[in-house]
């Protein structure tokens, strides 16, 4: 019973992470992501059309200068709405510091605070030696745990945040409906493969107006978090900005949704 509960909690966390970071791999030039972009989303739970808004998700980019280089900071944060705070308070922060041209990650940080659960993760990418130095910190009642590890990675392995931005940056014009694209990312020190299937073009009415979108189906190659065939969908605007305007995830009962509320500082 306890094992099943732990497994469910772990799957739920991965799902939250994916929902938060909903919107991979052939490293190409960045043509879609601006340096001062801010996208705000509302995450909701939908049961037979009864929509309950649960959390706000913000995806923001900014420039970061170090002594030797200028990097792009990709930041995703999730905050539950105040009426949920007393039941299940989420304050999650995911960051990735990437090359502004190729969106290759150098540093990834994940700081999650969900109810009484706290976790901090940091990956330092070394693309030459194909190694990731990982630090994991967990707060527990019995004391704090810190684990340091070096993980071997394959070529073009990303983190979850840069994966989302790589999905946006990918040129879907070259794909035919039904074609797939794979991206690999490191999550909880395990490499995961995300498979993006381009389904069709669809026009959606969003908070940004009526937009023609690329409809994409998302699935994970070696994990059971996202289930179903073409049940986890993402719509990216079919323009040069490729804004993720809507995402839908199937869960045990009902579905989870992510809808765009506002988009500012776009590149085009």
């Amino acid at each position, binding site marked *: 019973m306890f094992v099943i509960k732990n497994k469910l909690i772990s799957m739920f966390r991965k799902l939250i992470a994916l929902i938060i970071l909903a919107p991979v791999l052939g490293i190409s030039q960045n043509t879609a992501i601006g340096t001062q972009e801010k996208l705000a989303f*509302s995450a909701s*739970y939908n*049961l*037979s059309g*009864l*929509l*309950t*808004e*649960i959390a*706000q998700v913000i995806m923001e980019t900014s420039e*970061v*200068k*170090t*002594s*030797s*280089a200028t*990097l792009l*900071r990709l*930041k995703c*944060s999730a*905050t*539950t*709405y*105040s*009426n*949920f*705070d007393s*039941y299940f*308070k989420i*304050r999650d*922060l995911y*960051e990735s*510091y990437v*090359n502004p041209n190729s969106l290759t990650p*150098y*540093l990834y*940080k994940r*700081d999650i605070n969900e109810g009484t659960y706290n976790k901090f993760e*940091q990956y*330092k*990418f*070394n*693309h*030459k030696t194909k190694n990731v130095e990982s630090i994991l910190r967990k707060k527990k009642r019995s004391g704090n745990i810190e684990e340091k590890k070096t993980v071997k990675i394959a070529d073009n392995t990303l983190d979850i945040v840069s994966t989302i931005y790589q999905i946006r940056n990918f040129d879907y014009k070259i794909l035919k409906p039904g074609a797939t694209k794979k991206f690999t990312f490191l999550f909880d020190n395990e490499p995961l493969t995300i498979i993006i299937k381009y389904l069709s073009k669809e026009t959606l009415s969003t908070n940004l107006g009526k937009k023609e979108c690329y409809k994409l189906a998302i699935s994970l190659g070696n994990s059971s978090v996202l289930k179903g065939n073409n049940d986890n969908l993402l719509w990216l605007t079919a323009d040069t900005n490729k804004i993720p305007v809507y995402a839908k995830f199937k869960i045990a009962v009902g579905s989870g949704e992510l809808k765009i509320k506002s988009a500012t500082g776009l590149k085009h």
Partner: protein
Amino acid sequence: MRTLFVVLGFIASILSVILAVTPLFKIAFIPSIAALVFGLIALYVSRQKQLPKKSIQLVFLLTIIALSLTTYKSIFSTVEVGDTEELIQKENESEQEAIETLEDIEIDE
């Protein structure tokens, strides 16, 4: 038959009252409708067999309370983000720490 529908009605109406006070209040519409249906069936059976209707009235009362609360909350409640000061502070601290960490990482431009 009557007892079964009264019990089902009670379960559904209590569930809808509980859901109506939680943030997932919109879902309370589903058990409320179920409670109304069970209540009506129990009422119909009671009328035919001329049995007491007091317990059925209680099912309706609970359902009406849940429905009014849910409808009121659906119309008047607006969502807003709670306290994010701590998160904003964490974001700023994290950026400063990241800049220090990035100094040790080899970056190809």
